[in-house]
């Protein structure tokens, strides 16, 4: 099964090359270059779709066919002579996405929230396991009896008798107010 003919290997490679070109760098696909590479040549003017930097160093389509070239020639004249479709075509030559297209909402938030909850769940399991297997026994001061004696002692000492703890206790009737 690993014995592919050279023809088949070549076909596979070119398919992967096409996928790599269209997938990794949309900004590269309209640029006329011959080598297969995932990395961008940073010494050349770049194109980008960014909300905060509106005008990239180069137009979207560098390689113009004859119709594009004639349109560019017409652009050198008065723009009132251009039809609406021609203006839109010129825009699309220069830019890849419009601002609304750049700002289009994605489904990423579902992944984020989902991932968050997954990790909450895992953390919950870890915490539960920890409470069962790691924690030492609780100090004796946490017991019901001890807590009751503690509260009684606090009331006897008149802790915060004006606005706080003992202020809530009715000393005459021996109950909480």
């Amino acid at each position, binding site marked *: 099964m690993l014995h592919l003919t050279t023809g088949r290997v070549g076909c596979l490679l070119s398919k992967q090359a096409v996928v790599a070109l269209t997938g990794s760098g949309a900004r590269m696909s309209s640029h006329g270059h011959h080598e297969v590479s995932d990395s961008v040549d940073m010494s050349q003017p770049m194109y980008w779709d960014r909300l905060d930097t509106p005008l990239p160093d180069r137009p979207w389509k560098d390689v113009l066919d004859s119709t594009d070239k004639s349109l560019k020639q017409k652009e050198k004249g008065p723009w009132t002579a251009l039809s609406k479709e021609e203006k839109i075509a010129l825009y699309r030559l220069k830019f890849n996405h419009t601002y609304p297209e750049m700002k289009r909402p994605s489904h990423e938030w579902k992944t984020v929230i989902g991932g968050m909850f997954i990790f909450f769940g895992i953390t919950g399991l870890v915490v539960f396991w920890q409470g069962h297997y790691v924690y030492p026994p609780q100090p004796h001061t946490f017991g019901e009896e001890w807590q009751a004696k503690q509260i009684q*002692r606090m009331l006897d000492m*008149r802790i915060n*008798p004006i606005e706080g703890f003992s202020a809530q206790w009715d000393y005459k009737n021996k109950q909480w107010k």
Partner: protein
Amino acid sequence: MSLAKPAMRGLLGKRLRFHLPIAFALSLVAAAAFKYGVTGPRKQAYADFYKQYDTTKEFNNMRDAGVFESVRTTGE
């Protein structure tokens, strides 16, 4: 399509002229609310408490409850 030229200067001044009086007024409101809502009632609560505070009686109650280390309970 001729749009009006947007404001190019005085943006911070405009913002301050709008927001500073509001901020000042809100701070005064916050201070007044705290004075009449928190410190006023608190002072009153302390005054009321100590108006009918019988020191000796409270001391004897605490002593009988056994919370002192330097004073024995009565009847020992």
